[in-house]
């Protein structure tokens, strides 16, 4: 009998470890804090200040989930993870969610047992050039000397882009990002290429940041978003609708300043979203007003973007692909109805 019980317990634990019967939502509520995996320090996305307070785009997603689940954006235990450690940490249950500038690829879902909950940042490879060149498009870069970091996927993407567009390319490969900036500033190349978010960070390292711009073209796909373990549909849904809730709030004009007014709005879409006329929040395992509570805590998607990486930050990255679909970008959430 004892052996049988032990067997059952063992099987249950194995299942829990696989996530098949995982109840992450209940675990987080019982624990009273969200374990959120973040980068160890990436300007604009996640970094602690001198007092140990974390901020950034990815960090605000952790806080939004905490506001939705625990009604408090401060009930987050931030777990800084290296690139190598991030997926094992999620697989082993050390974190409930990974919000760490990670690219959504098939390998990570098919092989690593993860589920990406959405794309909260469309990144991709771009080009930085001197403002004085007055270039509007990457197609005007025929014959350019291009600085690229050796051993990165950027090398292949650059070669493909120049070849398919019948442009002459002179690659200047350098070992690291510091060397890349130096080579560019010394005039060894006409343009510098890596992911767009990183181009803006590198621009801050330059002697005169405002004399360089990033051309609007994005030539590769680096869709970033939060990830959870497979096998817990309820938790997957929660993290997914946190993202969609923040996007819908942005689209409908529900901001931190207007969230209280939104509760008594006349717009049926707004009334549903903030829970005045809907109980979808409760059906997800949260409260009916969880979107309103997230927006009150950290703002809507656009406010999170602008504060951390956009007009409110030193990075000053234009919304670009990450603008709402009806305003010039491709961010699009299913309706909250």
């Amino acid at each position, binding site marked *: 009998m004892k052996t049988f019980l032990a067997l059952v317990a063992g099987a249950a634990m194995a299942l829990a470890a696989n996530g098949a019967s995982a109840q992450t939502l209940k675990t987080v509520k019982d624990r009273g*804090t969200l374990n959120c995996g973040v980068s*160890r*320090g990436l300007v604009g996305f996640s970094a*602690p200040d001198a*007092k*140990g*307070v*974390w*901020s950034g785009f990815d960090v605000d997603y952790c*806080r939004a989930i905490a506001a939705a689940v625990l009604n408090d*954006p*401060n009930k*987050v*235990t*931030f*777990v*800084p993870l290296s690139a190598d450690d991030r997926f094992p940490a999620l697989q082993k249950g050390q974190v409930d969610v990974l919000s760490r500038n990670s690219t959504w690829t098939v390998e990570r879902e098919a092989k690593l047992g993860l589920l990406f909950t959405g794309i909260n940042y469309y990144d991709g490879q771009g080009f930085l050039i001197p403002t004085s060149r007055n*270039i*509007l*498009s990457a197609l005007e870069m025929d014959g350019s000397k291009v600085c690229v970091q050796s051993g990165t996927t950027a090398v292949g993407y650059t070669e493909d882009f120049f070849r398919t567009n019948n442009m002459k390319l002179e690659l200047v490969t350098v070992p690291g990002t*510091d060397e890349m900036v130096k080579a560019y500033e010394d005039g060894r190349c006409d343009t510098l290429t890596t992911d767009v978010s990183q181009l803006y960070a590198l621009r801050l*390292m330059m002697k005169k940041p*405002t004399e360089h*711009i990033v*051309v*609007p*073209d*994005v030539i590769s796909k680096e869709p970033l978003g939060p990830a959870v373990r497979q096998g817990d549909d309820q938790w997957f849904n929660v993290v997914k609708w946190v993202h969609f809730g923040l996007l819908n709030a942005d*689209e*409908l*004009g*529900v*901001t*931190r*300043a*207007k969230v209280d*007014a*939104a509760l008594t*709005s006349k*717009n049926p879409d707004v009334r549903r979203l903030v829970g005045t006329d809907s109980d979808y929040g409760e059906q997800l395992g949260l409260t009916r007003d969880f979107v309103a509570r997230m927006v009150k*805590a950290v*703002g809507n998607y656009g*406010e999170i973007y*602008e*504060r951390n990486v*956009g*007009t*409110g*930050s030193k990075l*000053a990255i*234009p*919304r*670009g*692909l990450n*603008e709402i*679909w009806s*305003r*010039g*970008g*491709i961010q699009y959430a299913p309706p909250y109805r």
Partner: protein
Amino acid sequence: MAFKFRTLVLTALLQVGALTVGSMAMAQQYTPVPPRGMGATMDIGDQPGREAPADDELTIDPAYRRQPVYFRTTEAPGTIIISTKDRFLYLVQGNNRALRYGIGVGRDGFTWQGLVSVVRKAEWPDWTPPAEMIQRQPYLPRFMAGGPGNPMGARALYLGGTVYRIHGTNQPETIGYAVSSGCFRLVNSEIIDLYSRVPVGTKVIVRQAVEI
């Protein structure tokens, strides 16, 4: 070298911090700062007689300087789209891109949305403040000839059938904000650039923030 050393120190701090930061973060309150672009206002009256520097685009926040951006739209190249909510003016270039200019939006700029067109262009426009503006700011002149001290700035694009105009400014620090008077203002060096790209007849679409 200095940069590398700092990186090393930072990494070391973060590794030590990894063990302790989590619990510390619980104790610290987090207060999001409102981003400037969304809803920020500047309480400033007109300053006739003041002159902006010639390189006034260099005095504004880099985020609000003219730059090419990704912009997906079905509007034809050459169309101007003004988004008052985030204080940007887009000149559509086609192929999913636009030239984006930072603007300041005056109270008249928030009153209407829809489609208008440029019916007149003027260099160094004269200025006749309307009666309600005189009431709010009694110190204003009744008429002011165009020039560097004129709040209308270096150029103006007049939008048909409305009080709307896109103009320059002698107050470059107001770019990125909602301000007390006027419509859509750009720094002089950028309105001069826009003026040279935009003919009479250009379509202008004004988009306001969504009503709650």
